[in-house]
């Protein structure tokens, strides 16, 4: 029986395993050094915050693996030989495979800051990081202040985590507004406000110069590059992005770029070796997507596609329209299609509406010349994925999207609706006369 070995039990590795099992009888082994069972990395924050216990982050009960004949091996892979079809573990053992799937995810970036390896300095990626944080920052007596370096999604999550235990947080952001490389200015400003309203000491355009040792190998303060200010702190969170976790492959025969180089079939340079998830790097970005996409659902989709290929139905990884979501403290964010931040392409125009009081806003992007709808970001409003996916496929015009906006609303029942206000603002700004159309189940299920 063909032996499929998967390194990494994250969403990518587990999804491919599940789908291979659905479609075949092959022997499947998943290897991970991090945890015995698959857990949801995206939920680590909720464990620290006390919303959940770690066991709640595990989507499958422990009998699931046996029942589905998915073998789990707890070990770190030290090296891989594609030619010999074997992998070596750090305890000296090895394992052979017929097909190998690399799904080893990411590691937090460190940019060579002085003091970056001191005690109390950490990222937030692995379960071990959660355990470290529990030790370094159990409460605001042990951790009197924390500094977070890097204004991305994990950074703001880490700020929220510490804030939930009433630990004062200083948040260093390189840009002049939070995540404005991705978010349009109005939205980025809204998030700045949300961060400040939660009492977090947000420092825009401030970078880390060094982390200062207390003499015992533990951090005691940081120094800011621009101002020279010293901020005393017991924990430093390094959240300046992630990179593919591929260093263990450096001496292998598998071609690496920043990640493991793959083609659209998710094949690496070595036959029968594949890579998926955060660690995979497309030779060319697909559409407007970047070659490495470290998000949850792309790992899942690569897993779904690769399982088809492995089971004899060669299937390219072919992600549909971009979508994503996040939550910034108390504000939910969803995006469908492309809405650009500060790196806006020349052909893109945007329409922005913001609620007069609440932290709610919408940005719609469209092609400046053709009026074609390109994408939408919503803050504080939920939208229907299927509707936008369809509208993007149909290349709808932006006016059309605005008119039928009510079909796309996904907020819980009885919530105040904002479409009328949004559309009237749109009409005003663009000199249009669009009338909002009533929600129709028929169209939603069309």
């Amino acid at each position, binding site marked *: 029986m063909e032996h499929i070995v998967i390194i990494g039990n994250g969403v990518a590795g587990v999804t491919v395993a599940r789908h291979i099992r659905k479609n075949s009888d092959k022997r499947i082994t998943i290897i991970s050094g991090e945890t015995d069972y698959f857990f*949801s990395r995206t939920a680590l924050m909720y464990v620290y915050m006390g919303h959940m216990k770690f066991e709640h982050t595990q989507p499958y009960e422990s009998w699931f693996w046996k029942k589905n004949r998915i073998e789990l091996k707890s070990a770190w892979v030290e090296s891989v030989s594609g030619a010999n079809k074997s992998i070596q573990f750090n305890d000296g053992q090895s394992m052979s495979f017929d097909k190998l799937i690399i799904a080893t995810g990411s590691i937090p970036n460190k940019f060579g800051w002085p003091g970056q390896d001191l005690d109390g300095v950490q990222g937030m990626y692995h379960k071990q990081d959660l355990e470290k944080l529990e030790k370094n920052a159990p409460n605001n007596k042990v951790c009197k202040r924390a500094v977070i370096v890097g204004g991305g999604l994990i950074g703001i999550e880490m700020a929220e985590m510490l804030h939930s235990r009433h630990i004062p947080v200083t948040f260093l952001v390189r840009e002049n507004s939070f995540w404005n490389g991705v978010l349009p200015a109005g939205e980025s400003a809204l998030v700045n406000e949300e961060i400040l309203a939660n009492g977090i000491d947000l420092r825009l355009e401030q970078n880390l110069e060094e982390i200062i040792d207390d003499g015992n190998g533990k951090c005691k303060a940081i120094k800011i590059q621009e101002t020279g200010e010293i901020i005393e702190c017991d924990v430093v969170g390094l959240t300046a992005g992630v990179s593919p976790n591929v260093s263990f492959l450096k001496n292998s025969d598998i071609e690496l770029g920043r990640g493991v180089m793959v083609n659209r079939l998710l094949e690496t340079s070595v036959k029968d070796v594949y890579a998926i998830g955060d660690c995979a790097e497309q030779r060319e970005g697909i559409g407007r997507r970047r070659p490495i996409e470290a998000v949850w659902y792309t790992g899942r989709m690569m897993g779904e596609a690769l399982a088809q290929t492995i089971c004899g139905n060669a299937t390219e*990884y072919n992600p*549909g329209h971009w979508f994503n979501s996040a939550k910034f403290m108390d504000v939910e964010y*969803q995006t469908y299609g492309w809405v650009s931040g500060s790196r806006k392409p020349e052909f893109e125009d945007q329409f922005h509406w913001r609620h007069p009081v609440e932290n709610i806003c919408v940005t719609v992007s469209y092609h400046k010349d053709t009026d074609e709808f390109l994408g939408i970001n919503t803050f504080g409003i939920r*939208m229907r*994925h299927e509707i936008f996916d369809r509208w993007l496929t149909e290349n709808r015009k932006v006016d059309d999207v605005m008119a039928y906006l009510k079909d796309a609303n996904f907020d819980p029942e009885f*919530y105040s609706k904002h479409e009328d206000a949004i559309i009237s603002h749109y009409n005003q700004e663009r000199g249009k006369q669009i009338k909002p159309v009533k929600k129709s*189940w028929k169209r939603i299920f069309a």
Partner: protein
Amino acid sequence: MKAIHHIGLVIFLIGLTIFTGSIFAGSFDLQKEQLNSFLESKGIANEFIIKELNEDVVSKGPMGIFEFSSSVRGALEKNNVHYDALIAKYDAAKDWDNKGKQYQYRINEKDFRAMSFSLAKKSAIGFVVENKGLMWFLTFGLGILGALMFIAPQLQLLGRKGIKNNGIYHSAATSRGWIAWLVLVYLVLFYITLYFMADYVVNWTFIVDPISLFLSGNEASQWFVYGFLYCVLMSVMAVRMYIKYRHNKYQVLRTTSVLFFQIVLAFLIPEIMTSLQMPAYDFKNAFPLDYDFFFSWNLDSLLDSGAIGLFILVWGIVLTVIIVPVMVYFFGKRWYCSWVCGCGGLAETLGDPYRQNSSKKLISWKLERWLIHSVLVFSLVMTIVTLYAYFTGANSLLGIPADWIKDAYSVLIGAWFAGVIGTGFYPIFGNRVWCRFGCPLAAYLGLVQRFKSRFRITTNGGQCISCGNCSTYCEQGIDVRAYAQKGENIVRASCVGCGVCSAVCPRGVLKLENGPEDGRINPTEVLLGNDVDLMDLLNKGK
């Protein structure tokens, strides 16, 4: 704010301690005239029992409630022993005539506690009876005040509006710690006493006598205490819901709705009906949750009550047979279970802090399906036997004695399952223990919801990140994530539509909605977001 929060807790605990301690207060000094008038009202005239009660209770003078209760029950027991001996004697002598006469003098053991309760109610003396108003303030008053002081500061302490489940799994009260166990023991003892030893808590009834007299003109029974307490608990804990979910209109409206139905329909209207000499009826309490609706005493009482009785009879049947399923078709079972029902109302207010403790294991789901459907069958069999007995005058059907099955159901399901376990186990097993594992009405609504309804929880395409908040906070133990991460809508019999999965989801994945039946169930191999062709390929034949 923190200080108010903590002082509130102390005041609440003082109120709770006085309330609990009041059981032991005062004494009970039964007078001859009180005894006589009681016996007369019961039509009891046999010499032996009068003698025994006089000797064992009246002449003993003031006693604490426990001694009083055991004295009364002891006297009644002696009476039965006495007549049992006579019965045996006449039986041996084959004197059937005299043997038959003795039965009327026996007192049914089931009535011991009720008689003890009635006598205690008449004969109480001491602080509680003499200071009902003050006692109300020291128990309910302090309890309410303390709880509100504890709860209100959360408006600020919890932080800005939004989901704030911070620390739930760090607290011994909400994560099955020692506080939770303590609360469980307290609740279980409370229910056991209330259901099976009501005479012990007769002092509680004095505290609410003035309110009961005002509402219905009658003195309070233990059921009035329970009803009043129920409304108080729900109201106070509704304030907590309003604060916790102030950003979520669904939760705010739903809480208001259950509160309204509890206070007005379950509590006030039946009291007012009593004061108008009508049969008391909770118009929203549908059979088979209202399991004694078809009991002979209820049918007799309704048929004796003229037009209103007849109306209630028809309403009760229409409610179960037509209104309930039709509403479930349009809105899902939530319209009842988390917008109207009293049990649901308590679960959604008092029980909300415990919702995360319901087990999500597959094995619990299996147990749930077995149990709840067995109770449904049990309730139906019980009712059929009862109705058969009622209409034919027979004592049993297919060898099942009507009285026996009624009693068995009342004690096992009505008292133990719905009360002692169903509510007592909140702190450890989650707030819907009864609704999930036991309620026959929920089982019935669930079948309708599963197979013929417009209600579903829609999963938003591919947005789920498998974080598990939805499953963790599902009070019914549904593994919501298992569906959401596959892009599948959630169509489950047990879903009561509380809406909390949707509220806690950080990615806006879940929406409770009523829509066309087409497309309600959407099995998908591959989630939205992947290549269109691949989806077509895999979802073919859906």
